[in-house]
């Protein structure tokens, strides 16, 4: 998106998505050797976020239905979890995030304990040589 002249912008007609997603000033850091990896990670995490949003919405719908309340858009937006429901929802987020970032946890464990890193291929090669 090119720079916009504020005088020509009208909140009623402006491109909200382009403005919300605008690039911040400053050179973007890339942490992987291949910038394509960074791009895929960025897209994947954005999708992960939307899955979490959908799941929380489903949870709200279920809780409204369980309470015998009408399930309308307004009721969903107005819903506020009580302490116990909020905790269950946060526990779901924690479990979900741990699940999608599983490979990072496993890399940590591989670093912690070398006995987890025996290569089955090398073992198999050895077996066949014997």
């Amino acid at each position: 998106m090119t720079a916009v002249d504020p005088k020509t912008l009208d909140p009623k007609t402006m491109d909200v998505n382009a403005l919300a997603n605008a690039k911040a000033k400053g050179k973007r850091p890339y942490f992987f050797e291949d910038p394509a990896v960074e791009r895929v990670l960025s897209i994947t995490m954005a999708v992960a976020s939307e899955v979490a949003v959908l799941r929380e919405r489903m949870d709200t719908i279920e809780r409204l239905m369980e309470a015998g309340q009408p399930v309308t858009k307004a009721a969903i937006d107005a819903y506020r979890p009580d302490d116990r429901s909020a905790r269950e929802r946060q526990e779901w987020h924690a479990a979900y995030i741990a699940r999608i970032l599983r490979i990072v946890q496993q890399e940590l464990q591989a670093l912690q304990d070398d006995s987890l890193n025996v290569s089955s291929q090398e073992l198999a090669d050895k077996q066949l040589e014997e």
Partner: protein
Amino acid sequence: MPGVLPPTYDRVGRHGVSPELSHDEIARFNFLTNLNVHLGQAVFPATKLAFEKRVRPAFQHTQGRDFASQREIRDAMKADPVYQAWAALRRNTMEMRQQAGRHVVMRQLGPLNDKVAALNSGKATLKLDDAMRAPDYIAQVDNHWMPGSYYTETVPGDASAGASYEVGTFVTTAGSMSASGDGGGRALVNFVRARFPNFRPKRILDLGAGIGVNTLPLAGAFPEAEVIAADVAAPMLRYGHARAQSLGYTNVRFVQMDADHLDLAPQSFDWVQTTMMLHETSAATVATVMRRAFDLLKPGGLMLHVEQPNFTPQMTLWERFTRDWDSWYNNEPFWGKLHTMDVFALMTAAGFARDKQFETFTEADIEPGRYQPWASTLSRHKPELNKTGAANDGARKGEHWYLFGATK
């Protein structure tokens, strides 16, 4: 069972110009808050392990010596896959927070700016300077990747920067600034009351006050004082003034001013201070702020600054490297440099006597009872500091902050 469950976003305090939030917008903030907590608790420790188990030994093997600077650590860590994953995830999480917050604000920009304008209209407590331009240290890169930074006006009379800054703070700090975001200002009040019990300031100047989130607790604690919230960015001041008005604060004036060019009378303040502002300026501006503070204070007046703690000789290079991460990758280029500056020498050069200078640590004051009883917060910048207590200490732990200052 996870160690840390942050409070949910619906506990965030609201006021007269808070943007409306849909169910899904709150859910998006909840996901991002939990992701920040996970990165701090579960992924960040892996980078330290990678450093000790393979990056450091490899460096020692090839160089025949240990690391001599944090820059050497940074260069070596860049190639480590675990570090790459953590850094890219953290950077992306910040970007997603900015996107989520800006979308909330941009989709309701017209009505939001109208609400702000209605509260600001005809008020002498808001004074903007149309000729002011953002100083270089703000204008070159957008701090913490907030598109447009504090000063950009999307439309005339815009307040969007203030709103989008405020809605995302809870996410990045995982609630450690308290539900109203003013944990720093509340901690300042606690500190000043304890340390200077007879202090009754009549005029207070808060430089780089932004939307005044940490200024309002000072105004509330000293209702007889006239408080000036100064900032270079008009959108922050518009939003902050409207916010303060809606919360009932009448003793705060929001004034557009540049800390390098303050048009204020000498010896006209009892208290001059900044909260988390200095690290977003420059070496020259930090020195100017000290000198001007001395000049603006009445005899016996108080200068106070809240910042991230400076480096100490005991601090390891690894800790310096992780603490300065924001300098390189969160668009806060002066953050690390400030950590190495001798603030006591600067205060002395500005005129403050050495025996009137002080430093101390404080913890953001989280309003009791606002979060769920099971909720925990953690410090974004020093997860290692919180490792021992935060997880089991309910919702009482806030961001660890460093205070320094002097009396005149």
